[in-house]
């Protein structure tokens, strides 16, 4: 028990050290308003909830009081969580050999498993659109899973990716997937008779991370652009014509561009050693870094919820920043 108290004291002191040093490093635009003392490899946020994943555990945190963030509960899968997305109170989790897991993360209760589906290989990430969960899997590519009834997810088909599939994101009737080393694929979700990509291209830069992330920028002037953060350059694909995705010039951030979060055309980049970078992609051909926040340890993921920006740091803790003065 004594050892436990000593340990807690050390943790608190360390947390205080981190917080004070972060305050010293912050810019005018961000205010550090709290810290969540839970290690997170991945983080997502919606309204007053943050979702943190580390190893096989997904933890739901109440951030309605950012200065007093509170864990609501956690669920642990037998295998590592490689990626997840939250949709309508459900967390769709890519849990390695455990496949797709669907957690009920609504309300104030501990997350519970609503349903699961073992995919053939390692489930990596999930995106949901129109009652279909798209699951990237190292063996099958992208699995199309009906999730109208979350308790009974049903595999309807798979689309093949040449390399190691890493992430998928759905937007309306279209989904975009990426693999390692360089593949980028477009799927037409309105097709029910084919699960093959309708368009594909190769990026010029190898994707070297197992947790690459795709996000779709808001359409601008009829032009649709998808961003890929894969541990190096931020890669951009013009997908205005789904059958013919085109690689646009990449954007180099100061750091490693590990993960991203979007607020309209602002892209928040967990930039590794370079901390948090904010890049304005209003003009995808000419993105600009508009702000940054130095972190003492590498930033490995980022999420935005309302005015809050959450930054998961390597080695533990999630910083809660408030944007604006």
């Amino acid at each position, binding site marked *: 028990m004594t050892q436990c108290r000593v340990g807690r004291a050390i943790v608190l002191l360390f947390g205080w050290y981190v917080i004070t040093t972060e305050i010293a490093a912050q810019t005018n635009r961000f205010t550090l308003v709290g810290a969540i003392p839970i290690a997170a490899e991945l983080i997502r946020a919606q309204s007053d909830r943050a979702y943190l994943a580390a190893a096989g555990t997904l933890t739901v945190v109440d951030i309605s009081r950012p200065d007093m963030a509170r864990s609501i509960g956690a669920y642990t899968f037998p295998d590592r969580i490689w990626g997840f997305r939250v949709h309508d109170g459900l967390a769709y989790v890519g849990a390695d050999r455990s496949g797709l897991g669907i957690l009920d993360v609504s309300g104030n209760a501990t997350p519970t498993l609503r349903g699961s589906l073992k995919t*053939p*290989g*390692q489930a990596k990430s999930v995106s949901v659109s129109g009652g279909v969960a798209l699951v990237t899997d190292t*063996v099958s590519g992208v699995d199309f899973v009906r999730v109208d009834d979350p308790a009974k997810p049903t595999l309807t*088909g798979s689309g*093949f990716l040449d*390399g*190691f599939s890493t992430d998928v994101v759905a937007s309306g009737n279209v989904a975009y997937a990426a693999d390692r080393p*360089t593949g980028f694929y477009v799927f037409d979700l309105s097709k029910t008779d084919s699960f093959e990509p309708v368009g594909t291209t190769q990026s010029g830069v*190898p994707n070297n991370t197992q947790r690459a992330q795709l996000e779709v920028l808001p359409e601008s002037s009829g032009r649709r652009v998808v961003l890929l953060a894969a541990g190096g350059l931020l890669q951009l694909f013009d997908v205005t014509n789904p059958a013919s995705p085109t690689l646009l010039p990449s954007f180099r951030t100061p750091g490693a561009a590990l993960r991203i979060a979007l607020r309209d055309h602002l892209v928040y980049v967990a930039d590794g050693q370079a901390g948090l970078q904010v890049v304005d992609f209003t003009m995808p051909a000419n993105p600009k870094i508009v702000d940054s926040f130095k972190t003492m340890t590498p930033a490995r993921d980022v999420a935005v919820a309302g005015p809050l920006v959450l930054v998961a740091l390597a080695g533990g803790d999630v910083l809660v920043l408030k944007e604006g003065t």
Partner: protein
Amino acid sequence: MRRVVVLTSLALTLLLLSHVEATDRWPQFRGPGAGVADDDPALPDTWSQTENVVWKIEIPGQSWSSPIVWGDHVFLTSAISSEKEPSPTRGLADPTAENGRMRSSASHRWMVYDVDFNTGKVRWEREIRNGSPPIARHTRNSYASETPVTDGQRVYVYFGTLGLIAALDLKGEVVWTKDLGPKESAQGWGMAASPLLHSGRIYVLSDNGVESFIAAFDARTGDEIWRAKREEFEGWSTPVVWENETRTEIVTAAAGRVRSYGVDGQLLWELSGMSDFGSIPTPVVSSGLAYISSGYPGSARRPVFAVRPGASGDISLKPGESGNQHIAWFQPLLGSYQTSGLAYRGHYYTLLDRGFLLCHDATTGKQVYGRQRLDVSASGFAASPWAYNGKLFALSEDGVAYVVQAGPEFKLLGKNSLDEMTMATPAIARGSLFIRTQSKLYRIAKATRP
């Protein structure tokens, strides 16, 4: 005079002992026909854990080496741990933080078995060595993944984990051993390349992180005949002997370069452009071409090359080339990672690790049909495909064999499950199919012989 008679008698005896019809033997990894067996109406199309099973026996330990057959002898190897080892996961693994590497400190016994073809009874078993494995391995690999070879007089086993070659006579007595020393692979994923046997010589390829080499040994004595150093630092591809119209050569596939050596160890030709990661598929020699492939999914290069005989020097393709004087055809993204190609009746088949079959014209490389998924629920494929009686067979890691009609039209004819993981490539001889699963060896043949 008496000496001549004795010698003649001895020679005749040896000849009789070693005389086995070609269809009665499957003496090496993938057999004499690179996975293609002679047609035989006795060979099965359907089976299960009980249907068309002549016998099945438990094989202790963990090993992904293939069985081999010579007459009434079915040989296989295993590595038996004194402790429970982690069970291998099914399906292609994207390396995790541990990179898939594991090390066992448990004592192991490296074994050779001779199983009676007719009864399935173990005729003899021989422990070659025991102790802790000196090197690490991938969780999906085993410490006895190399398939033995036989000439009907001796069976030769190579345990890459130990760096040990052993020759045993057909009674299970060790004739000689050659200790080459264990060598850790660069990533600690272990060894798997099987030895070759040709014209009285054993060839061993060891691409490792210490001192890579290919070497030839006298099959009678184990004496080293020659050794050539190599630059590769890991690889699991079994080389192949290519007897072509110009010469006999040993073709090796590797991440850095494909290299072909003369039987004297001299480098004949080399070729760049393989996946930038260790190679696993064994080259395929068929109809005057050598098909060489590699296809690590995380590599931007996943080629299949069809090489003509008689090459010399560096025959690498220049950017934009799809062939040259020595390369009949080239497909940049066709290669599979673990399974070897299959050339059968004018077509070249590729079984992707993730359960797709593709067909190309074997001569021109033109696509006959593109990716055809065998089963969306299959967890992966590591065993190399085989063919007979106008059918192709693809054995999944789930122990399910998919039967596909050979030819230009893809048609899945059926599937046969043994309901246990396997990564070993089967053997075929005397109208029987030998499938090794994680714990068993099956002899499968039609119950009603035609």
